[in-house]
């Protein structure tokens, strides 16, 4: 348990703030262009083809993967590692830190992942199939590519960071979980800078498409940009996406000391578990997780200006989350609710971090981007405060609550507050 104090009552060396954002999303390769795409309603979902599964749709990133890595780095490493290296370098650059003179042994890397290793394992099996399954043709690179810490470890290698690094395996709650881990490690003085968030390379494994398809949970649509449609009556599943979003987190005392620009403060968070099903969510536990985060932040539900939903476009998942949100925010007249997966699909381990980043700019412009593709709102999802298809101008945005849930009943919620 964290201390029950309000974040603002804590000493500055226990208050955790965001000082940099680095990201690649299917519709933007930096925070500003991503935000612009969200405000313009620009989708990043496109036709996609993958071995064995064939033609489908996906959220595909087109960041410059050689900006921070050599060709050899790319050959040696993984896509998740590459996404991570890009996002981490971008975040540090954005933070304005004096990186050359920063003590790298005091930097911690905490990267949320939904899964890792499937891409490389599938690749190797494909290769040895060509050699009649002769395992002597199985690459010696397989183990370093598939160890669970790989995406974080590649960042450490790339940026010469010698502090702790690891991934947080937390299904699709991982982006928030990475942020939470980073904050905890800063509070414990395990590091002075946390590079935290999530990454996803999931579009490069055919298995994720095939599994969602077998579960009747993979989105299809003649128009790729319309395929990801949370809350809509015609939603028919998930659009798998890749991407990454990493933040630089610092203690407020350190951020103030270097006169850093602060993009928000982590004022509350919570994680809990449904313990009810492998796949189906439990709205009661989700609501408890939201309530716990609010309580820790010392906030009432009606003080939240934006709720960034997890909804993925599945029939059951969306309505269950809406049931949870209705129980918490049903009476809140000024709370606005949106969804970012409708633009980019489900970026798995990066989803929570990316979706938060999409909303974080609202502290500056007070504009709330909408959920797109809602042509016919499902009555079960008809929450008051839903922002649909058109951006809304709020009077003021002070608090953003970001949901991120995953399989095996893992729930995570973070609340970010404006820094005055």
């Amino acid at each position, binding site marked *: 348990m964290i201390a029950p104090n309000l974040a603002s009552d804590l000493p500055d060396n226990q208050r955790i703030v965001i000082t940099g954002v680095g990201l690649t999303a299917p519709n933007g390769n930096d925070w500003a262009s991503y935000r612009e795409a969200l405000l313009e309603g620009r989708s990043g979902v496109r036709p996609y083809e993958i071995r064995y599964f064939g033609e489908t749709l996906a959220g595909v990133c087109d960041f410059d993967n050689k900006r921070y890595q*050599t*060709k*050899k780095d790319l050959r*040696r490493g993984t896509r998740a590692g590459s996404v991570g290296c890009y996002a981490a370098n971008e975040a540090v650059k954005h933070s304005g830190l004096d990186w050359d003179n920063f003590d790298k042994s005091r930097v911690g890397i905490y990267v949320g992942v939904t899964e890792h290793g499937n891409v490389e394992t599938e690749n190797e099996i494909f290769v040895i199939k060509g*050699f009649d399954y002769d395992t*002597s*043709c199985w*690459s010696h690179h397989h183990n370093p590519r598939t160890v669970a810490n790989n995406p974080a470890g590649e960042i450490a290698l790339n940026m010469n960071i010698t502090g702790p690094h690891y991934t947080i395996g937390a299904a699709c709650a991982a982006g928030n979980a990475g942020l939470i881990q980073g904050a905890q490690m800063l509070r414990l003085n395990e590091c002075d800078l946390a590079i935290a968030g999530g990454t996803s390379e999931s579009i490069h494994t055919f298995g994720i498409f095939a599994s969602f398809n077998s579960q009747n949970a993979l989105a299809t649509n003649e128009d790729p940009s319309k395929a990801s449609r949370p809350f809509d009556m015609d939603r028919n599943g998930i659009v798998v996406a890749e991407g990454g979003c990493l933040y630089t987190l610092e203690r407020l005392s350190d951020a103030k000391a270097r006169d850093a620009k602060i993009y928000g403060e982590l004022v509350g968070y919570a994680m809990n578990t449904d313990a009810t099903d492998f796949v189906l969510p439990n709205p009661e536990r989700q609501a408890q997780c939201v309530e716990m985060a609010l309580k820790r932040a010392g906030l009432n539900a009606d003080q939240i200006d934006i709720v960034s939903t997890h909804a993925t476009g599945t029939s059951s998942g969306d309505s269950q989350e809406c049931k949870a949100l209705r129980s918490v925010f049903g009476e809140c007249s000024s709370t606005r609710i949106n969804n970012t997966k409708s633009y980019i699909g489900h970026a798995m381990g990066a989803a929570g971090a990316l979706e938060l980043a999409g909303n974080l700019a609202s502290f500056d412009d007070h504009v709330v981007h909408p959920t797109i593709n809602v042509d016919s709102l499902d009555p079960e999802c008809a929450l008051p405060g839903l922002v649909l298809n058109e951006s809304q101008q709020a009077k003021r945005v002070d608090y953003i609550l970001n949901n991120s849930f995953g399989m095996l009943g893992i729930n995570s919620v973070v609340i970010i507050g404006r820094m005055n």
Partner: protein
Amino acid sequence: MTPAEIRDEIIDILEDISPDDEMDNLDDDQAFRDQLELDSMDFLDIVMELRKRHRVQIPEEDYGNLASMTSTVTYLEPKMKDIVKA
């Protein structure tokens, strides 16, 4: 394969393993390690590629023969002389 063809094949493999390095000025008598950014995993890639492309098996005790281009070609010549270049 002739020694020249074996050399071309090794260059092709090295270009794949070490794509940031320039091969044009490679000194055949000097160690690869002194000229290219190669580590032990990269040398294993040379072994792996020869196995995959030509079914040539190189036992671990022979890895020292892959130090330079000259020693590599000399070592591989009897193993690859009956292979027809594709």
